[in-house]
């Protein structure tokens, strides 16, 4: 990467719209996989994470980054130049959280979970995973899912099902999760129930 000017969308208005619809559809239909418009990776920031931040973050939204990303000058320069979003150290202060891998991610409960009055004031976590399918199968239920669905992303946090159940228990509070890999995105809003099984 030569310049911080790189990495933005060539046609920001239209590409943001297309990519936003992918994210919106992903969250409205939890567990389904949607094609994201991506530019390119920026240092340790995957192209998918970069894309989500370009679409959703700006001066008004704070971003938490894992240690690997926060230590990467190219990532910080890219986010500062293209989004203007302030980078915060405390996960509880973040509107968006970007994590380059599950091992870098603190427990969900450490992020902003919103309040009972304002459950919308919570963190949306964007997690780069090795793949959105091919891993252990989990069962999903809830709004946006007809009956029940299956997901099998690779590279979730170790105690994911337990952590997620705790997150679901807090409803309407809780974090929302976007998983991203291979130019695609999967949405898991706090309303989704996830269990092990086939």
């Amino acid at each position: 990467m030569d310049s911080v000017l790189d990495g933005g969308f060539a046609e920001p208005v239209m590409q943001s719209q297309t990519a936003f619809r992918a994210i919106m559809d992903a969250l409205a239909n939890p567990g389904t996989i949607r094609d994201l418009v991506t530019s390119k990776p920026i240092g340790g920031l995957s192209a998918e994470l970069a894309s989500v931040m370009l679409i959703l973050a700006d001066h008004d939204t704070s971003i938490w980054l894992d240690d690997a990303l926060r230590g990467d000058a190219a990532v910080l320069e890219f986010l500062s130049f293209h989004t203007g979003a302030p980078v915060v150290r405390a996960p509880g202060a973040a509107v968006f959280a970007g994590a380059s891998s599950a091992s870098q991610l603190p427990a969900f409960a450490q992020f902003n979970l919103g309040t009972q009055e304002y459950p919308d004031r919570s963190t949306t976590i964007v997690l780069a995973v090795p793949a959105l399918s091919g891993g252990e199968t989990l069962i999903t239920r809830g709004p946006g899912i007809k009956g029940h669905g299956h997901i099998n992303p690779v590279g979730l946090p170790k105690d994911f099902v337990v952590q997620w159940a705790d997150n679901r228990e807090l409803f309407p509070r809780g974090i929302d999760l976007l998983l991203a890999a291979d130019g695609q995105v999967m949405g898991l809003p706090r309303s989704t129930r996830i269990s092990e099984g086939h």
Partner: protein
Amino acid sequence: MNAVAQYNFAYLDEQTKRMIRRAILKAIAIPGYQVPFSSREMPMPYGWGTGGVQVTASIIGPQDVLKVIDQGADDTTNAVSIRAFFAKVAQVETTTHTAEATIIQTRHRIPEKALGQGQILVYQVPIPEPLRFLEPRETETRKMHALEEYGLMHVKLYEDIARHGRIATTYAYPVKVEGRYVMDPSPTPKFDNPKMHMSEALQLFGAGREHRIYAVPPHTEVVSLDFEDHPFEIQHFEEPCALCGASQVYLDEVILDDRGGHMYVCSDTDNCEERRAAGHVGALGADPMEAAE
């Protein structure tokens, strides 16, 4: 003076769209919860669909096909005006056919034809707070939602039964979403409430003047509030549509003279036209050519 500005695609600037898009994502994640957003002044008045217009402007793209209805009809003046607005600022294809539309912006109706996967219904909402007429203060209603304290709403509905023998709410009939939030479905007739339940379409609600956005994802439970001894029921019409003969649809009463003469016609004009094109004929809907023969 150079007052003629170059407007962005879909009118709103990108920063405003991002703010609204973030609100939409939260709304989807918390079905039925009203997300506060910083509504912008739009070039049409508050109360005339600015919330719906801002939601549509934030999601619409060149690949979309837009339908706009008001009172179920595509040709009512405000529907015409909003459709023309998007045709101008977003250069999108528009349609009156429900099945062809990817985004349908509506005021006061849900189309008769069941919506499908991938379709988005955008409601224009005047008063998003279902508890507002029981408690005018936002600070109070916010607490009631937080504590899931909806007793007041049941009391109101029950008072109706005590006084009128039935629940006297005919439109904007409150619903409960996924067993958690009581939600205002916007002033649609309660006839349309069952269509919201487990719909395949994504339903987005925009209230511009009141600065709120809320949502019902596809396949989501939407239950109209009621009582065991007074179950929720929808309106029934005594006569079918005079033009297409449809029953089990919502009808508008049209006054024909000043001696009480009236007839009922479909509120959903597209549904009515499609039925007539398919050969369905109501009492007054005979084709003029055939009638002349």
